[in-house]
Each structure stands twice: as structure tokens, then as C-alpha cells.
């Protein structure tokens, strides 16, 4: 609707008494400062935040232990895995057939994360060649194996590191705990459309 575009832009300019192509001042300055805390503290903050939401955190010394912890969490359930390096290192393989089918039918989705945020207990995942959107989304349980080195302090630090998330990926998702709803009588229910279980395994030295 090209005529709508012109009409709206022209109405906006008239409303603002601006002319086409007129320059603008700098947007307000932002304070993106954050307090850099030691890794041990970050993990403690992350744990406190995600446990409050019903998620869990494990800290493991290496890849073998990460695999062990994941296997323990999975139990007898079926899985679908991303092909992120650390997930592959743990010996989990991505599905051979249709990805969406695999995600829709699996009990547990296993991914890594590009970042984690200590303040809020969040995982940050960029959709990529190795990390599809659906693995952390369709299965009822999400297990994330995350290198300790990507655990940041806060949203501020994330946006300092990633000022232009769109340059990396068509989708950056910040996941903060299990899927939930309180739409019926404000009663908290987990696992509405996304995973009702979220487990994070931080791998030291990675």
C-alpha cells in the first residue's frame, strides 16, 4: 500500500512540523554500566534467580561430568539435540531426519547458550546453523549445557557485547526460566507452550 505509506509519513511529518529528510539530534545517552562480579558470585546469583522460577542449575568441572549430569536429567526420556560444539562434545547428536518433527516429538531438547545472565537467571540463544529455534522451544524439557565463560552479569553487559544482535542472527531469544502462565485465576502453571522444565549445566574451564 504505497499510498498509505506516503500518507502516514506525511501525516507524521506534519504532526511533528518536520520536513522530509530533516536530521535529528542524538538519542538520549544510555547508562549501560554494570558491576563486574567474580564467576562464583555470578553462578550464585544465577542459581538464586532461576531456582525462584522453578529451574535448576548444576556446576560441573568438565565435559564428561556435563554429559553425566545431562544423562541423569534426561532419565528414560527421548531427546532432540542442537549441534552446538559443547553439546556435540558431550556426545549428543542432532536429529538425522526432519528437525521440526524431531522437536515436536522429543521429551527433552538439549542446547547450549551464547550467553547467560546472572542477575535474572536467563539464557541467551542466537538462532544459527548449529542452534535452531525449535530445540529449546517445542520439547517439554529444556537442558542447556553452557560454558561458564559466557555467564555475564546482566542485561546491560549483554547489550554492551551485542549492540546489534540482528547482525548475528534472525532471532535472539532471552529465556528466563520455564514457560509459564497465570492466566487462570492468577494460579501459576508451568509448561504452557514452551518447556515447563529448564535445567542449566555450567561447565567450568569452557
Amino acid at each position, binding site marked *: *500500500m504505497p499510498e*498509505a505509506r506516503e*500518507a*502516514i*509519513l506525511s*501525516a*507524521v*511529518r*506534519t*504532526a*511533528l512540523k*518536520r520536513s522530509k529528510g530533516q536530521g535529528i*539530534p542524538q*538519542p*538520549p545517552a*544510555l547508562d*549501560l554500566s554494570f558491576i563486574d562480579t567474580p564467576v562464583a558470585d555470578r553462578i550464585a546469583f544465577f542459581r538464586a534467580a532461576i531456582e525462584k522460577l522453578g529451574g535448576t542449575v548444576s556446576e560441573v568441572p568438565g565435559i564428561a561430568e556435563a554429559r553425566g549430569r545431562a544423562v541423569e536429567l534426561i532419565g528414560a526420556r527421548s531427546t532432540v539435540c542442537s549441534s552446538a560444539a559443547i553439546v556435540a562434545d558431550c556426545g549428543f547428536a542432532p536429529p538425522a531426519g526432519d*528437525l*521440526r518433527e524431531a522437536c515436536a516429538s522429543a521429551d527433552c531438547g538439549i542446547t547450549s547458550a551464547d550467553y547467560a545472565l546472572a542477575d*535474572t537467571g536467563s539464557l541467551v540463544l542466537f*538462532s*544459527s*546453523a548449529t542452534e*535452531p*529455534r525449535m530445540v529449546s*522451544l517445542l520439547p517439554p524439557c529444556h537442558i542447556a549445557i553452557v560454558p561458564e565463560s559466557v555467564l555475564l552479569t546482566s*542485561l*546491560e553487559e*549483554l*547489550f*554492551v557485547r*551485542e*549492540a*546489534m*544482535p*540482528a*547482525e548475528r*542472527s*534472525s*532471532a*535472539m*531469544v*532471552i*529465556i*528466563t*526460566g520455564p*514457560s*509459564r*502462565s497465570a*492466566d*487462570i*485465576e*492468577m*494460579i501459576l*502453571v508451568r*509448561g*504452557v*507452550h*514452551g*518447556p515447563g522444565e529448564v535445567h542449566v549445566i555450567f561447565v567450568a574451564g569452557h
Partner: protein
Amino acid sequence: MPDAYKQQIKDTVGDPRLQIAIYNNTGRLVENRKSVVSTEALPGYQGLRDQGHAIKKHTLDHLDHYLELAEKNITARGGKVVYARDSAEACEWIAQLAEKRGVKLLVKSKSMTTEEIELNHALEKRGVEAVETDLGEYILQLNDEKPYHIIAPALHKTRFDVADIFERKLGGAREVVPEKQTQIARRVLREKFLAAGIGVTGANFVVADSGAVVVVENEGNARITSSAPKIHIAVAGLEKLIPRAQDLAVFLKLLARSATGQPLSVYTSFLSPPKRSNEQDGPEEFYLLFLDNGRTRLLADEGKRESLYCIRCGACLNHCPVYRKIGGHSYPWVYSGPIGAIITPQFMGLAKDPWLPYASSLCGACAEVCPVKIDIPKHLLTLRHEVTEMRTREGQNRLEKLAFRLWSYAMRHPRLYESLGKLAAGAAPNPANEAWIKKLPSLLHRGPVAAWLSERDLPPSPAKSFREQWRERQERRHNA
């Protein structure tokens, strides 16, 4: 004020079950918010509000620039920006796209903007099934109701209401436990998600420097809506723009805290589709539909422009003592509560619901909690002024206008004011009770005195006014 709303308000106020549901549920949201914006929980909260306000002001004051910037960046990544002047244009465009792509099923995540344009009904008429996927919205769609609240659409429904609706519309065994009800919805909707050809979301923010939309939610339905179907359409009001991705460090902190009392919502999706060539999943086509529908009209009004800063958190509803009595369905449009009372007349024109700005006790609780510091009471007062001007022009308020003119005259003439005061005091026998009003001429059975007495008693009139007693007091002192 139309009788339908009068009746709706009367029914809501008179329904004890509904009153408890509204008051308790909004009360929960009030308490949740309080715990995360306290000085201990978030020392910089007031500073964040100032920043949020300043960023929105900057963006709206230069909106043409940011619209074009967003469009440029979205287009560069293979997305497409579409503009719609009103609801009809927006719905028509979406329906045509569905027809062109042969799509018969469309999934939607919760979006006030698509409620505003009544997209579902428009699509239904064109043979396209549009399914709401947010749990609360889904319940309401099954029952053909509009949302009761900006962020808690089914706030007025009990689990028993939900059981009735599911039983009637979906069949199967009656289920009254919310957890099980949720699982029923999950199963039904999962199939819809995977079969749908188009996913429609709203946008909490449109990020100009990135050409991205940000969708914030708790359930995961917006993620699936924007990831599973081949086509993603985001519908956003023009005012949803922010300049930079980094601005989200401010707005994300404000939004979830103000809305539900969470430090961050469960899912924040920062989306710049279509999917890149190396990505394994995600939509192949992306459209951002910018909706005007009255917004440019409001934009032109510098005094009230900040009404467009709203980030739809719903905090003003939860804190509004009037909303908490009359509920969401007593407001004439999808936007209810204090923010609805100021934007409805500005989007739709004053003439449509001139009573709306009066549905407030001007207590100011809304402005106190607004995360972007919109001075809602100030705009309510301005709108009331505009309404009286309009009604005076059209001769619709002759009696009220006359009353205020006479009142104003009396208040400028202290002697007259005093005599009238005495007259009024004389007309109100002591002690005040319901009996005396019945003795008055029938004219007074209507009007403000009767309205007051319909709910409350009046205090007894004093024998002497302050000024009379003051004169006596000074005289006594003088003589002493």
C-alpha cells in the same frame, strides 16, 4: 453516556463474585510489582523511568526518521514493511496475503494491536481461521469475548468458567484444575501451530537501528507463532519504535516489572526475520505492518503526545481504583483503564465516548506507577476541558454549563456566596438522614444531591458557617 455502559458498570459493581475476582487479581499484580521495584530490589528504578520517558520522547518527536530507518533496515534483510492507515486497510492487507499464499489457518500470539483492528473477525469473513494462542486469549476467543485487561486478558474468569467453556467448545471430560486445563490448551494449540501457514504477533518494540521487532511473553506461544509458520507478520502501532537495541536494557527492565512483577519475562524474542540462509528454522517471509489508526492525529497534539509513550504494561489498570470496580468490559474499546480513558478519545475522536475521561476520581495512582511517566491525570483533565468545549459548541450541556456559570458568579461575589450558603444550610434539616430528602420537592430527587444520597449519607449542616463563627470569635477577643 450510553445506557449499555451504564448497565455494564452497574452489573459489574453489583456482581460480588466478579468484584472479588477483579480486586484480588489486580491486587496480586500490584503486590508483585511492588516487590521488584522497591529501592532494595532495583535502586535505579526511578532513573530508569526517566530514561524510558526520555527515549520515548526522543523517538516520538522524530518519528518520521525512525520509521524510515526501521524500514530501511528491515528491507535490507529481506523483510517488508507495510503501512496501514486504519483497521480496514490492515485487515484487508493480511487477508489478501493469506489468499495469495493459499493460507487457511493463521495462528496469533497475544497482541493488543490486532485486537484493536479486530483482525480475527475480518479474517473469519474471508474464510481464514485465526487462532489465538495465548492461554487467556484462547479462552476468550472460544467464548467470543474481548480481553478484560491488557496483560491478563481472562482476569475475570474463574477456573470453573474455563471448565465450562472448554467442555462446551472442545468436548472431553470437564476439567477444573488450571494445570490440566493448560495441558488441554497446549495439545489443541500445538497442532494449530504446526499446521498454520502464517503467524501473527504484535511487537512490544520495533528497534530502528536493527530492523527488528521485540516480542515479550511468558508462555512461549509468541516464539512458536514467530518460528513455526513459513510467514511471520508483526503488527505494530507506529509508536512502538525505539532507536537502538541497547535501549532495551532500559525498557525490558521496566516492562516485566510493571506488568507482572517479574524481573524479566520468560521469553524476550529479538527478531529480524526472515531466517538467514545458514539458519535451520524460522520464517521464510517477514512483514512488519505499521498501523496508524488515529495515532498521527494524537501525535500532532504536543500537549498530549506522551500518551503514545505507553508500553502496554497494564500497571495503571491494576492500580486504578475505578478499573478495579468497573472492570475491563465497561470501557468502550480494547484499551481499558486509565490509559484507555486517555487514548480512546484521542484515537477515535472525542465525540465517540465523551464520558470516558470522567470515569476517574483523579487519584493519580496511575501516573505514580507508569513506567514511562505518562501524566495520565493531567491528560484526563485536558480531555475533560476539550469535552466541555465540544459539548458547549454543540449545545449538549446547557444545564451543566449554566450551573457552573452561576456557581462561578457566586464564588466571585463573597456576599452572594454567603447568602446562598445560609439558604442551602437552611434547606437541609438536621440531622441528615434519608427521610428528609423525600420531603423535598421532586426536582431534587434527581441531580447531584440525590446521586450522593443514593450511596452515602450527608453530614448535618452546621448552624453557622466558619466565617460567621470567625467574626464572633474575633469580636469576643476584641471585647475581652
